C-alpha cells in the first residue's frame, strides 16, 4: 500500500522514496553487499557489456499494435468497412462506443453534461486500459508515441556524438498542466487542450488528411530531437496522466522486478521513458525481492529487452510468467 501510494506520488512528480526492506529483501541486499559478491557482479557486468546484445522482442509487438490500431481507423474510413469509425478521440468499434478518456474528460468539463453514449465509451475504454495497466495506452496505441520514439532515437544518436544535450524538466510540470487544462476547460467552456493535442491532431491527420496543425507536431518533435528528450510524453501530456491514474488502480498486468537476478548496472534506466519507476533497480533500493514497477510505467517492455539477466518481466496476476 505504501509502495503503491509512493508510485502514485512519483507519477505526479515526487522523487522516489526509500521504503523499509522486507526480511527477504534485507537478506538479498546484505548478500549482494558481500565483497566476494561485489567482485562477481563487476565481472559479470564487464562480461555482459563486452557482449552486448540488443533484443527487440517486445518492440515488434508494440509497434505493430500502434500501427494496427491507427491503420484500422484509416482503413475503416477509406474502404468504408465500419470496423473502427471515428478517430482516437472517440469512435465506434464494430458499433460499440469508445471514447478517449482525456478527450471525454475535457468535453465533460467544458460542456458540464454527459450523454449515455459517452458514458459507455468512457467505461469501455477505461476498463480495457485498466486491464492493460499503467500508461499502456501511451506505448501500445498512441501514434504520437511512435513518432516520438523515432525522434528519441535521433536525439540519442546526436547526444552520443555530443551534438545535442538533453535538458530535463521538472516532472511535476505534468500534473500542474493536467490541472491547468482541466480548470481551463471548466472555466472557459472550451476544450482548450484539444487545440494543441498532438494525439488528436495526428490521429485525425492520418484518417482525414493533414493540415496546418501538423506544424505543431513537427515543432514538438524538433524540440525533442534537439533540446528536451521526450518533451511531450515525459513532462506535458495530460492524456498519459489520465490513463496513468486509471491504470494505477490494481491492474492485473505489470512489469515485475526480481531483485535476485539484478546486477544493478542500470541498462534498463537508460532506455526507459519514465526512469523514476525503475529507481527500485538501483543497488539497495528495492524494498522487496519482487516489486511491481510503478504507476507511471507505460508497459513498453524496453527495460525487459534491455535487461540481460531477466530481472524484469511482464506479469499477469494469477497467471504464470509472460515470456
Amino acid at each position: 500500500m505504501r509502495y503503491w501510494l509512493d508510485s502514485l506520488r512519483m507519477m505526479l512528480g515526487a522523487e522516489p522514496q526509500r521504503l523499509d526492506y522486507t526480511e527477504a529483501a534485507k537478506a538479498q541486499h546484505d548478500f549482494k553487499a558481500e565483497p566476494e559478491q561485489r567482485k562477481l557482479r563487476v565481472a559479470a557486468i564487464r562480461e555482459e557489456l563486452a557482449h552486448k546484445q540488443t533484443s527487440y522482442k517486445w518492440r515488434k509487438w508494440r509497434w505493430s499494435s500502434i500501427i494496427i490500431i491507427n491503420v484500422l481507423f484509416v482503413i475503416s474510413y477509406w474502404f468504408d468497412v465500419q470496423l473502427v469509425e471515428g478517430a482516437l478521440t472517440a469512435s465506434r468499434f464494430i458499433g460499440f462506443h469508445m471514447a478517449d478518456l482525456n478527450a471525454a474528460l475535457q468535453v465533460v468539463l467544458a460542456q458540464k453534461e454527459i450523454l449515455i453514449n459517452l458514458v459507455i465509451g468512457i467505461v469501455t475504454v477505461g476498463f480495457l486500459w485498466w486491464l492493460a495497466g499503467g500508461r499502456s495506452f501511451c506505448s501500445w496505441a498512441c501514434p504520437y508515441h511512435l513518432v516520438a520514439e523515432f525522434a528519441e532515437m535521433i536525439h540519442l544518436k546526436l547526444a552520443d556524438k555530443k551534438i545535442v544535450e538533453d535538458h530535463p524538466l521538472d516532472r511535476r510540470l505534468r500534473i500542474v498542466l493536467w490541472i491547468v487544462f482541466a480548470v481551463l476547460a471548466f472555466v472557459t467552456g472550451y476544450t482548450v487542450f484539444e487545440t494543441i493535442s498532438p494525439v488528436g491532431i495526428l490521429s485525425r491527420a492520418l484518417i482525414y488528411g493533414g493540415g496546418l496543425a501538423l506544424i505543431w507536431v513537427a515543432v514538438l518533435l524538433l524540440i525533442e530531437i534537439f533540446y528536451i528528450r521526450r518533451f511531450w510524453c515525459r513532462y506535458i501530456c495530460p492524456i498519459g496522466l489520465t490513463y496513468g491514474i486509471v491504470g494505477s488502480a490494481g491492474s492485473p498486468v505489470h512489469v515485475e522486478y526480481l531483485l535476485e537476478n539484478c546486477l544493478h548496472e542500470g541498462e534498463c534506466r537508460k532506455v526507459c521513458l519514465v526512469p523514476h519507476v525503475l529507481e527500485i533497480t538501483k543497488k539497495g533500493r528495492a524494498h522487496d525481492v519482487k516489486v511491481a514497477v510503478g504507476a507511471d510505467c507505460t508497459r513498453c517492455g524496453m527495460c525487459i529487452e534491455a535487461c540481460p539477466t531477466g530481472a524484469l518481466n511482464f506479469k499477469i496476476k494469477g497467471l504464470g510468467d509472460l515470456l
Partner: protein
Amino acid sequence: MAKQLTPRQQKERRTLLLSALAGSATVALSLMGYIPVLKTLAARLRPPGALAEKAFLASCIKCGQCVQVCPVEAIKLADAGDGFGIGVPYIDARAQACDFSCDAVQCVLACPTGALTHEIDKKEQVRMGLARLDRPDVCLARLGQGFKGVARDIGLHRYVEVDRWNPIGIADHPYDLELCDLCVRECPIENAISLEPMSDDPADKRRTPVVHEACVGCGMCEMICPVDPAAIVIDERKVWGQA
C-alpha cells in the same frame, strides 16, 4: 544580498525555470485558440443538429464520425486556424452542401457526445441557417433567363429520378430549363423556397426566389446556383425573423 548558490542548486533553479517556461508556453499556445473564436473568424456552417456555437465547440469530441457517415461527404473537419474549433466539423455549402441524401440525419445519429443534438430526427427539424438572395442582380430567374448545360462541375447530389439511393455528380446531370429554377427544383425541403412573379404583367417571365420559414439552411441552393459566385447564399445560424 543574493545568497550564494551551490552548482547543484543553480542547476535545479535552471530546471525549474525552464519547466515553468515550457509549461507557460504550452498553455499560452493552447489559449491562442481563443483568438479565432473571439473574432468569429471562423463563422462556419455546422452540420445538421449542431448546438449553439459555444456549446457545440465545448461538446464536440473532434472524432469525425459525422464525416464518415455522410454519403455526399459534405462534412469537413476544421484545421488549426479555427483555434478551439480544431477538428470540429463544418460544411462548405458552395463546395458540397448537405442535401439530406442520407434520408435522415445520419451525422446526428453518429455523434457520440450530442454536439449534434439527438433531439432531432427529421430533416425538416434542422436549423443550420437561412438562405438569402445575396446578389439579386445576377440571379438568372430574376433576369428572366433559362439555363442549359451543367450547373456546377463539382459536388454530389441525389437525383431521386435518376437513382433513388446513390448521389451522383452534378456535372453528370445537365439541365435544359426555360427559366432557371435550380434553387427551387433541387431544394430538399418542401416549401422552403419558391419563385414568385416580379410584376403583375403575365407576359413578364422574370421570377424572384423567395425563402420561407421552412428553410433549414442546408445550402443545397448555394451549391447548385450556376452563377459564380452564387447568387443565393446561406447565413450560418441565422434564425427566421432575426434581423
